[in-house]
């Protein structure tokens, strides 16, 4: 990976000392103390981390068009703080320092979907809210959840935020494993498990351009190809932080992708990708500072 690429810099942000300091603030002053310290750290990123600001600004310009330079930077700053708070929450939850109140909407419907079918389902999410904390609520489903995600190569982040650790019900599938990854996903679905896929960044995969926040954006459609091939539903996972210690996990949106005869396969999946984009648009309408795309999805 090119060391100057935004992706490389994003994946190498954060170090052990930083996490130790936040852990210290959290233990001594509680959540609010750690949030307070966050304001200074985010100011540093706003002033000196150009790739991070550019990544966030792509979203801010679409979500709040015509805001002017100062207002845009203020919004980028707010977005950084919002993400920082959710990272602190995740750290606090993993360390067992804070008990969060997590309310799930559509959980019963999700359980029902799994009860009534032999195959599993795809849980489609995005870089929004605290999706890692959201996944912990899926323990109640009594199914193994397979996360399709790149292994965390920043050791400090992996250690502090447990991104790459497998728990008793979470398994990691690397998309970089190529064909192995495909077989793992297919087998997981066949044995009735849940496969969680990020649907907002295309990385090196094929994408479909759909309307998102007033312009055409590129979203990967691999999750929909798999769902159409296996015949399983796609449930959209939308996590949101409502207040200091309260989260809402919304899993009530269910899509059932299938190929239509007339259009080509890629084209016949476009409406489902558009629907996913509409769901995301609706989410950022309600929670504008919980969208952590940090990636210009409008540029191919």
């Amino acid at each position, binding site marked *: 990976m090119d060391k100057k690429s935004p992706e490389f810099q994003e994946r190498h942000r954060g170090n052990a000392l930083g996490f130790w300091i936040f852990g210290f603030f959290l233990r001594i002053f509680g959540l609010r103390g750690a949030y307070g310290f966050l304001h200074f750290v985010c100011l540093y990123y706003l002033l000196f981390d150009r790739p991070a600001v550019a990544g966030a600004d792509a979203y801010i310009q679409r979500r709040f068009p015509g805001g002017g330079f100062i207002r845009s930077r203020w919004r980028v700053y707010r977005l950084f703080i919002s993400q920082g708070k959710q990272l602190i929450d995740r750290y606090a939850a993993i360390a067992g320092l804070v008990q969060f109140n997590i309310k799930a909407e559509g959980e019963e419907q999700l359980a029902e979907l799994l009860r009534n079918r032999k195959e599993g389902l795809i849980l489609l999410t995005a870089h929004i809210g605290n999706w890692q904390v959201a996944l912990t609520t899926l323990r109640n489903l009594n199914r193994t959840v397979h996360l399709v995600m790149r292994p965390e190569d920043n050791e400090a982040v992996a250690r502090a935020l447990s991104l790459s650790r497998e728990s008793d019900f979470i398994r990691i599938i690397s998309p970089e494993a190529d064909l192995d990854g495909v077989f793992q996903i297919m087998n997981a679905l066949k044995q009735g498990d849940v496969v969680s896929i990020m649907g907002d960044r295309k990385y090196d995969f094929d994408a479909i351009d759909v309307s998102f926040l007033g312009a055409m954006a590129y979203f990967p459609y691999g999750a929909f190809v798999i769902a159409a091939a*296996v015949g399983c539903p796609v449930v959209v996972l939308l996590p949101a932080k409502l207040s200091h210690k309260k989260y809402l996990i919304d899993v009530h949106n269910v899509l059932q992708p299938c190929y239509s005869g007339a259009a080509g396969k890629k084209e016949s999946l476009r409406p489902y990708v558009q629907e996913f984009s509409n769901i995301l648009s609706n989410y950022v309408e309600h929670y504008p500072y919980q969208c952590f795309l940090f990636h210009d999805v409008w540029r191919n």
Partner: protein
Amino acid sequence: MDEHNEQELAEIRKVLKELLVTNLNLEDIEPEQIKDDEILFGQGLGLDSLDAVEIVVLLQRNFGLEVKDMKEGKKIFYSLDTLARYVLENRKQ
């Protein structure tokens, strides 16, 4: 391999070529243009991991075969010939 098996293998290759062209939307390729030992992914036919999804389902629907072993899967999916031999050997069991 005896003559009967060779004939059967040739038949499976032919069916697979047709299924690949139809199911993977391979544009501008006729089934008979695909070589018997054509490499499927990367070079050769240039398929990608999403096409592998279709092939997994295609094997299941048309031949009742499930690829469970991931290490095996890579060898099976290497070329049209390895895929056809897998079908021949496992369909009979």
